[in-house]
C-alpha cells in the first residue's frame, strides 16, 4: 500500500516535469564543457535564473533564495542529443497500436506526413532517457513496406515534452530501401527526380498524369528546396553516398547523411561538400553488402577529415537511447578526440537541426539545458546527478526507478531474513 501511494504521488511529478517553475540555482565549482569557443571552464560557477544561464564565471554570489549545488569539479555539459528515432512515437516495440513511426498508405509518396503530431510527451521512455542525461532528440519516421522512400518529416523534441518548430525531411536510399523503388536502388533517384520535377514545374502536369505527390506534398517538398531545413538521407554504401552527393548538388538540396557506415571512404568529398554525417558509432560489421566497410573508426576518420559528425543509433527504437553516450566513448577509444565526441552529442546535432539557440551549448543568456555528471560523461560507470531542461530541474525518477524501488524493498526484506 505504501509503495502504491509512492507511485501515485510520483506520477504527477513526472507528467508535470516540463511545466514546473524554473528554479534559481547556483551550480558551484563545476568543470563546464561549454561547447563554444570558450572551451572548458575549470572551477566555474553557473547561475540559473528565469530558465536561463544568467551568469557563467567564477566566484559568483548566489542570490538570496537560490538553491546551491556543490559540483566539486564534476563535469557540467549541455543536455545530450538522443539521436534520430522514435522517441515518443513508439511506446513499445512490436505493438502496432502503440507505434506511430511509419506511414503505410500503399506506397504513396507523402512528404507532407509529419510524424511530430503523434508525439506523446507522457511516454515513459522520456523519463528513462532524461535520467540518461538526454535533453533533446530528433523525431524521424521510417520507410516501411507500404510506405515510400520519403518517409516524412519530424521535429526536434525536448525531453520536457516540448516540440520545436524546425522540421527535417527523411529519405531512405540504398539497398534496404530498394523494395520501395521497384526493386532497384537506381529507382530511388528516378523517383526523387520525378517528385522534384513535379515540384519545380507543376505547369507540366496534365490532369491525367500519373503523379507521385499531392498538392500538399509538392508544397512540403518545395519548402525543403531553399536549403533552410535539413533533408536527411539514409545511405551507407560509398558509391551510393557519391550518388546522393551528386544528386543533392544537382538539385540544390541541403542534405545530411544518416547511417553512412562507409562514409569514411568518401570523407574528403563530404568535407568539401560540407555535408554532416549522422552515424552509429558502434556499427562495425558487414551487416549487409551496403556496409562491408563498416568500422569503429568511421567517426574518428570523418572527424579528422573535417566532416561534422553526429551520433545516432542505426536502430531508431527509442528505449535505450541513453546508451548513445557509451557509443561516443567507444568512438573515443577508437581514435576520436574526446571533445569532438561530446560535440557529436551536443553542439553538432543542435546546429544541424536548427536548435542551437537552446540546445547543445552552455552560454550566458541561453536556456539552461544542463547535465551535471558523476564523472566523465562518456564513461559507462558515470550517471547523471542533475538534469535541467529550460532551467527546470528534472526529477531523477522514471517508471524504471519506481519498479526498482518497489522490488528493492522486497530484496532487502529477503536478504534480512
Amino acid at each position: 500500500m505504501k509503495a502504491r501511494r509512492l507511485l501515485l504521488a510520483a506520477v504527477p511529478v513526472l507528467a508535470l516535469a516540463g511545466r514546473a517553475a524554473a528554479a534559481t540555482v547556483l551550480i558551484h565549482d563545476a568543470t563546464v564543457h561549454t561547447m563554444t569557443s570558450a572551451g572548458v571552464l575549470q572551477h566555474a560557477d553557473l547561475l540559473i535564473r528565469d530558465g536561463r544561464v544568467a551568469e557563467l564565471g567564477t566566484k559568483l554570489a548566489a542570490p538570496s533564495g537560490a538553491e546551491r549545488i556543490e559540483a566539486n569539479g564534476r563535469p557540467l555539459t549541455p543536455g545530450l542529443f538522443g539521436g534520430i528515432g522514435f522517441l515518443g512515437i513508439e511506446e513499445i516495440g512490436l505493438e502496432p497500436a502503440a507505434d506511430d513511426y511509419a506511414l503505410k498508405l500503399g506506397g504513396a509518396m507523402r512528404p507532407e506526413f509529419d510524424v511530430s503530431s503523434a508525439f506523446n510527451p507522457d511516454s515513459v521512455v522520456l523519463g528513462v532517457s532524461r535520467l540518461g542525461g538526454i535533453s533533446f532528440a530528433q523525431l524521424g519516421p521510417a520507410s516501411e513496406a507500404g510506405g515510400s522512400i520519403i518517409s516524412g518529416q519530424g521535429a526536434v523534441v525536448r525531453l520536457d515534452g516540448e516540440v520545436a518548430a524546425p522540421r527535417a525531411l527523411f529519405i531512405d536510399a540504398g539497398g534496404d530501401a530498394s523494395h520501395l523503388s521497384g526493386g532497384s536502388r537506381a529507382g530511388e533517384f528516378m523517383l526523387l527526380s520525378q517528385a522534384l520535377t513535379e515540384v519545380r514545374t507543376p505547369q507540366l502536369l496534365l490532369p491525367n498524369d500519373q503523379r507521385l505527390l499531392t498538392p500538399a506534398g509538392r508544397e512540403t517538398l518545395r519548402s525543403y528546396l531553399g536549403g533552410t531545413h535539413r533533408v536527411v538521407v539514409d545511405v551507407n554504401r560509398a558509391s551510393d553516398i557519391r550518388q546522393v552527393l551528386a544528386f543533392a548538388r544537382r538539385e540544390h538540396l541541403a542534405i545530411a547523411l544518416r547511417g553512412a557506415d562507409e562514409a569514411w571512404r568518401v570523407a574528403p568529398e563530404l568535407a568539401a561538400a560540407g555535408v554532416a554525417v549522422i552515424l552509429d558509432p558502434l556499427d562495425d560489421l558487414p551487416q549487409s553488402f551496403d556496409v562491408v566497410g563498416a568500422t569503429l573508426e568511421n567517426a574518428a576518420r570523418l572527424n579528422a577529415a573535417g566532416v561534422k559528425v553526429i551520433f545516432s543509433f542505426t536502430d531508431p527504437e527509442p528505449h535505450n537511447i541513453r546508451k548513445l553516450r557509451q557509443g561516443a566513448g567507444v568512438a573515443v577509444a577508437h581514435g576520436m578526440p574526446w571533445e569532438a565526441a561530446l560535440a557529436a552529442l551536443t553542439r553538432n546535432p543542435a546546429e544541424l537541426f536548427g536548435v542551437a539557440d537552446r540546445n547543445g551549448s552552455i552560454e550566458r543568456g541561453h536556456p539552461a539545458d544542463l547535465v551535471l555528471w558523476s564523472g566523465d560523461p562518456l564513461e559507462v560507470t558515470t550517471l547523471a546527478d542533475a538534469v535541467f531542461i529550460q532551467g527546470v530541474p528534472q526529477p531523477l525518477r522514471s517508471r524504471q526507478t519506481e519498479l526498482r524501488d518497489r522490488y528493492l524493498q522486497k530484496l532487502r526484506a529477503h536478504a534480512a531474513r
Partner: protein
Amino acid sequence: MKRLCCFLAAAVLSGCAMQAARPAKTSAPPAAQAATPIAPAASFYPSTYQPPASAPTLIRNATLLSGTGTRLEHADLLLVDGKISAVGASLTAPANATVVDGTGRWVTPGLIDIHSHLGVYPVPAVSGNDDGNEATSPSTANVWAEHSVWPQDPGFRTALAGGITTLQILPGSANLIGGRSVVLKNVPSVTYQGMKFPAAPQGLKMACGENPKRVYGAGKKVFPSTRMGNMAGYRAQWAEAQEYLRDNIEYQKKLATGAKDAKAPKRDLRLDTLAAALQGQILIHMHCYRADEMAAVLDMSREFGYHVAAFHHAVEAYKISDLLAQNGVCAAMWADWWGFKMESYDGIPENMAFVDAAPGGCAIVHSDSDEGIQRLNQEAAKVMAYGARAGLDVPPERAIRWLTANPAKSLGLDSRTGTLEPGKMADVVVWNGTPFSVYALADLVYIDGALRYDRAHPDVAPRSDFLLGQPAAPEVTP
C-alpha cells in the same frame, strides 16, 4: 586427452558430457544418474579443436581479477602448456617463456557469452545466411545449432577483440523448443568442429512468451497462440520424452537380461534430445522475460524432473531473485535493454545487481547481439554504476564473475574454464586498464595458452574469408 574422452564416449554410451554437466543444484530424477540408454549422437560430431603448442607465458605485475571473487594487485600469472600454471607474486619465468609486462593492465579470465547467435545468424544478414530459427514447427528439438554455424561469420573476430574466448551458440526463439546449442572456443577455423569446445555439454534452447505464440498463433494460425498454449506445448513434449525414455530403458533391461522379445524402439531425433535433457545430459537454457512465466517453468521442471540451467534475457529476474536463487537457476541478462516488446517493458538497469544480491544468486551478463558481445565488460560496468546508486555495490572482482565464472557454471564448464586457477584452461584477457570502462580494450587474448588476438598486431587474428578482397576498413591500432 579431451578428444580421447569424447571418442570413448561413443563406445561406452556414457558421455563426458554427463560428467561435465554439473548443474549448480540439480532437481533431476534418479534417471539422470543412471547410464543413458539413448545413443549419445553428439559423439559422432566430435570436436576437432586442438590448441596449438605455445611457449609458456608469464604476465607480470598486473591487476588480476581471478573470477573466484578475488582481486590481486601487482600479481603475476603463468600459463604453461595451455593451462593456468601459477598465480601469485614474483613468479619465476621458465627459460623459454614469453614475458608480458602487465604494469597498469588488468587481467581477467577469458569472457564467456552464454547467449550468442554468431554463425547461425551471421553477417552479412542476407537471406542465404538466415539459419538461426527452424521456424517450421513449435518443437524442433531434433535440430542442432552447430549444423547451422558458419565459421566465417566476421562477428567471431570482433567478439574476440572484445575478449570473448568461449561462447554458446543457440538456435533462435521462434519455437517452444528450438533445438540443441553448441559451445565454441572463439578460434578461427574452416569447420565448426574445429571451434567446438571439447566435451562441452550441449544445451537445449527453449523459449517462453511472445515469440512462439507470435510465430505460430499470430503468424501461422496454428498452436500455440497463447502463453497457456506455450505451457501445454512444452508439457506435451516432455510427456512424450518420458515415455520414450521409459521404452528405451525397458529395452536396455531386456537386452541386459537376454530377453528374446527385446525390440529397439523406433529412433526419434527430437525425442533423443528431450530424453537426454530430462536425464541432465543436455542443459536447458530457456529464453524467458517475465517473472510469472519463469515461476511457471520452475513448476514444470519439477513436474518432469529436470533442472533449468539458466533463464536467458530474464528482464524481470529482479522481481524473483530469491526464487531463482533458491532453485539454483542462473539468470542471463542484458544491462539495459527494455521496451522493444511488451514482455520487456519492465526492464530496469539494476536487474543484474538484484540477482547478484540475492543470497546464492547467479547473475550472468549475456549479449544475444553481435554488437553487445564485443563489450560484455562494459555491459557489466553499467550495471555496477546503476547498482551502486541503488545501494547494491558490486566490486570489480565480483562483477567479473557475471561474464566468466557464472556462465561457465551454467554451461557445466566451471571445472575447466572461467577462472584463473591453476589447472584451468589458459583462457585469459589482458586489458589496457580496468575492463569496466568505455575506454577498455583487450590488448591480448589467449585461448588455451595460445595468443589469438593482439591489438598491436591485428594479423594475429585472421579476418574472415568473407572480408578478403572486399573494401573493408584496414585496421589501425588506436
